[in-house]
């Protein structure tokens, strides 16, 4: 039972990270019909930006500001940095290819992903960066918590999961309740028709990249608060995030959240009860099962083609 609770908390943490990454994929795919392979690496850059800010502010053992402020600043900086990076990627790697055959921006995205990963490798090396668990001298967040049975759930985990959900709700409100959100939905429905209705498509696309990348930045910090971050995490995290988006139904925002959580649970329970080594296999099986039996995903609509 104790293991189960621990695994569930871990699953929720991991799942909300995946969900945040999946949202970035889903948003961009919805608007551009483009698989943004570089998204996983944006996520990785976010975790490094967070680490840089953490160091600037004195690190976790001797922070210059209260730990609450520190966490907020680190997350905001990562979100802002990633948003800028996302805009740059869109402007220089994807926009020139908007009218090219579908395969062209995909290959360009592969190039961006490879470029980002190796640039980070060049500048910062392959060594893992540890955010520390806030346990050493400033144990407020880690030692405090509440008990479920005999298991202590650290406050840091609660904060991570809580803020991920807050971000998702904010995003949902933004897309469904604001004018900009309406423009995004219109663009995603039919780009040409939206342009004819006077929607500035370029602005919508840039805004989508800002949103998606900022979420990836936040996810990067949350991920790095759990385990040390390194350059190579981008590839696998991107893959998992995309899988989550596909499982949930690509283009659907609640779908991305559900898919992310599902993936988090699948991975966490497999690692806990079966073996840490084979969780990729389980995730892949889920992906293939969805591809075969329900290609539109949990929340997606079946694609009806008019010829």
């Amino acid at each position, binding site marked *: 039972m104790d293991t189960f609770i621990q695994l569930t908390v871990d699953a929720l943490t991991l799942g909300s990270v995946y969900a945040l990454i999946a949202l970035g994929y889903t948003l961009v*795919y919805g608007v551009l*019909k483009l*698989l943004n392979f570089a998204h996983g690496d944006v996520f990785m850059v976010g975790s490094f930006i967070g680490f840089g800010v953490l160091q600037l502010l004195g690190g976790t053992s001797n922070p210059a500001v209260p730990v609450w402020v520190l966490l907020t600043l680190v997350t905001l900086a990562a979100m802002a940095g990633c948003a800028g990076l996302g805009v*740059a990627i869109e*402007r*220089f*790697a994807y926009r*020139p*290819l908007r009218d*090219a*055959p*579908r*395969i*062209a*921006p*995909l*290959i*360009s995205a*592969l*190039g*961006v*992903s*490879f*470029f*980002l990963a*190796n*640039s980070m*490798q*060049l*500048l*910062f090396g392959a060594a893992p960066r540890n955010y520390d668990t806030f346990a050493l001298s400033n144990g407020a967040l880690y030692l405090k918590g509440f008990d479920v049975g005999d298991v202590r759930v650290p406050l840091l985990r609660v904060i991570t999961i809580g803020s991920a959900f807050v971000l998702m709700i904010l995003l949902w409100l933004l897309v469904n309740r604001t004018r900009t959100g309406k423009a995004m939905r219109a663009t995603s429905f039919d780009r040409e028709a939206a342009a004819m209705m006077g929607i500035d498509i370029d602005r919508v696309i840039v805004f989508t990249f800002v949103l998606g990348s900022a979420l990836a930045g936040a996810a990067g910090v949350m991920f790095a608060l759990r385990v040390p971050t390194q350059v190579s995490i981008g*590839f*696998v995290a991107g*893959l998992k995030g*995309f*899988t989550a988006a*596909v499982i949930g139904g690509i283009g659907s925002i609640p779908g991305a959240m559900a898919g992310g959580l599902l993936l988090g649970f699948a991975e966490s329970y497999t690692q806990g009860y079966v073996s840490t*080594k*084979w969780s*990729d*296999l389980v995730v*892949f099986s889920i*992906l*293939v099962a969805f*591809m*075969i039996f329900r*290609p539109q995903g949990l929340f997606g609509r079946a694609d009806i*083609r008019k*010829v």
Partner: protein
Amino acid sequence: MSDTTPHAATPSPAEGPAVGQDEWVARHAERRLARGGLLGTVEARLRTIPWWAWLALFVAAMCLVPAVESSGYVRRVAFDTVLYMLLALGLNIVVGWGGLLDLGYVALYGVGAYTYAFIASDQFGVHLPTLVAVPVTVIVGAIVGLLLGLPSRRLTGDYLAIVTLFFLQLFQTLTTNGDSAFGHDITGGPNGILNVDPFHLFGHDLAVQHAGVFAVSYFYVALGVFAVVYVALRFVNLSRTGRAWRALREDPLAAETMGMPVNWLKLLSFSFGAAVAALTGTLFAALNASVFPLTFYFTLLITVYVMVILGGSGSQAGVVLGALIVGPLLEVLRDPDKSRWVFVLAVAAGLALSYRLSRRLAAILAATIGFGFAVHEVAGAIDSRWVAGQHATGLGGSIAHWVVVPAHLAGWVPPVSYVGLISAALLLTIVDPRVRQVLLVPTLYLAAFVWENVMLADPDATRYIVLGVILIALMIVRPNGLLGERRVEIV
């Protein structure tokens, strides 16, 4: 338009396209404007040489490499390049002809290498003769490729990309953890499989080393395999299936309405690509006498993609040329001094291409050189340590008088200068041409500074950064690559 003339006059109806070909597309080449002058004549002559003559010439030239160069290192690079050419030919089937984005391709290369290692090593004590083991491996590869293609039956391009990419990741997981699957050691885990049998042909084991130097027997075997695969694929491309693939690539929906078995064609192209990859895998495993999981990963995937895209996807000669450029380039970039030459030549070529041989080009070059010396002097006058970096011999020595090479690099310098360079380069692409000429000078100097101080320090990351940049730039500037044809759009 005075220096260009139409390629040919309207041909007589008798020379028209064969039945079933769209006339407008078939005559596409005739409408293209040919280059005039001496260059045009040479180009037109070159175009009349048949493809098999080119191939024979090329293979003969490659055969001479070991004769000219006795260094084992160069021979080894030549061998690896032939492997790259084979891999590029295989990927070209799926991407260039089938138009499917297969990101699990190198996993199939790995499947080939591992299958050969399973049936020809001490791992399970099986030692099949080479002439049996290689065909078996190719068939296994083709079947795995078919299975990998199965999800593509219902999937459009993007989904396919992600399933195949996940397959690549899964291949990693399986091979890395395969040393403890159900309590058995199957793949040797991260340590891989050692002591794989060498090829055994005509009653002799092919030796990897001869008198301490890389032996050329494998090189010739690989070259032979390359020639056979090239010719075979040439005929496949001209066959009914080959034409159907191209129809599939251009418009799957139209192909389907014409009664083509679209799903089967997709599976077939996956399978063909996988078979070529598996065949290449046997050569790799036999030469290295070992296989490790990490050989077959994302890095290799991108490398092969760059080769295919750079050469021109869809063109066999193109992808071979791509491999011939990228393979040695990756080796050259390992060495700092050669790497400097690559940088200087690439900058010069880039400038010459964009400004032609004009006065502006001369002005930019002169300004850059002058700017460099000025910065170097100023930096040296402020603090001599700033220019006290290592003075290497050769080009590095001469460059050190021009570019600032500090004796000790502060921790913040690499990230700031690198990010600054990327931002400046991106900015250059969107500013007014006149402003660009002015900004180009400091940007070039910054590039030289970053190359000398940051990128040469880590050749491995640098090589792959270069590949990534090539890939992005190609897709934007010249998606058809060096020898590929631009898509003919009928609207």
